[in-house]
């Protein structure tokens, strides 16, 4: 049995869209699984989904229900939720702070955190629709991660990833 060595991190917006039945997100999962990828949900998306369930309870039942269904579906979808060690969390937070302050002027700390966590888990992709992450300079982001002794992560939207996967399929690879 081969050890899983290809991972992709999924952001909270991707997960909620998947639960709602977004065709693009479903295509990404099926497409990458075909290439031997495993999927990871890191701490930040879990916190954000947990926050919707917790804070929207009694305020917006539909938001709360779908966020809860999303969390409950993580296992059914076969996604992994490995926790980072305390020291890794602390370093991820520092890296996130640097990433946001230097490369994502309109971003929140969570945008940096989700990227740093994906890098800590050695993910090759971070699949997201967060504009702050998608608009950040790709080369600078990768250099910043490598400079922090982390793996570089390709930040990509479901739309772009589906286009790339379709192109690979068309070439017959």
């Amino acid at each position, binding site marked *: 049995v081969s050890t899983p060595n290809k991972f992709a991190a999924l952001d909270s917006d991707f997960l909620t869209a998947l*639960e*709602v039945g977004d065709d693009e997100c479903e295509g990404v999962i099926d497409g990458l699984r075909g290439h031997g990828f495993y999927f990871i949900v890191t701490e930040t998306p879990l916190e954000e*989904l*947990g926050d919707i369930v917790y804070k929207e309870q009694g305020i917006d039942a539909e938001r709360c229900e779908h966020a809860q269904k999303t969390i*409950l579906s993580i296992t059914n979808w076969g996604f992994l939720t490995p926790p980072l060690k305390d020291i890794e969390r602390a370093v991820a937070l520092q890296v996130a702070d640097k990433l946001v302050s230097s490369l994502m002027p309109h971003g929140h700390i*969570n945008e940096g955190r989700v990227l740093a966590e994906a890098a800590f888990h050695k993910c090759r992709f971070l699949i997201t629709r967060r504009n702050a992450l998608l608009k950040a300079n790709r080369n600078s982001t990768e250099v910043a991660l490598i400079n922090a002794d982390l793996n570089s992560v390709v930040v990509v939207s479901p739309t772009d990833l589906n286009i790339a996967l379709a192109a690979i399929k068309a070439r017959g690879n």
Partner: protein
Amino acid sequence: MKKNVRDGKLTEKTPMSKATHSEKQRLLKKMAQAVEDARNRVSGYSSEERERLETFARGLIKGVNSKQVCGTR
């Protein structure tokens, strides 16, 4: 569902896959906003508050896992 797990295909497992297009679009928009709101809130939380939310989410996942283990016995 088991067939889908074996095949590595997700499509039919998504709970809302069979919803109408307009219903999906409405929910997609609503949940995207919910995530955006949560991101704004969580970004301002202390590490203790974040840890509590993570534990809460992991507790829900753990509940599903133990149900699945029991189901196979």
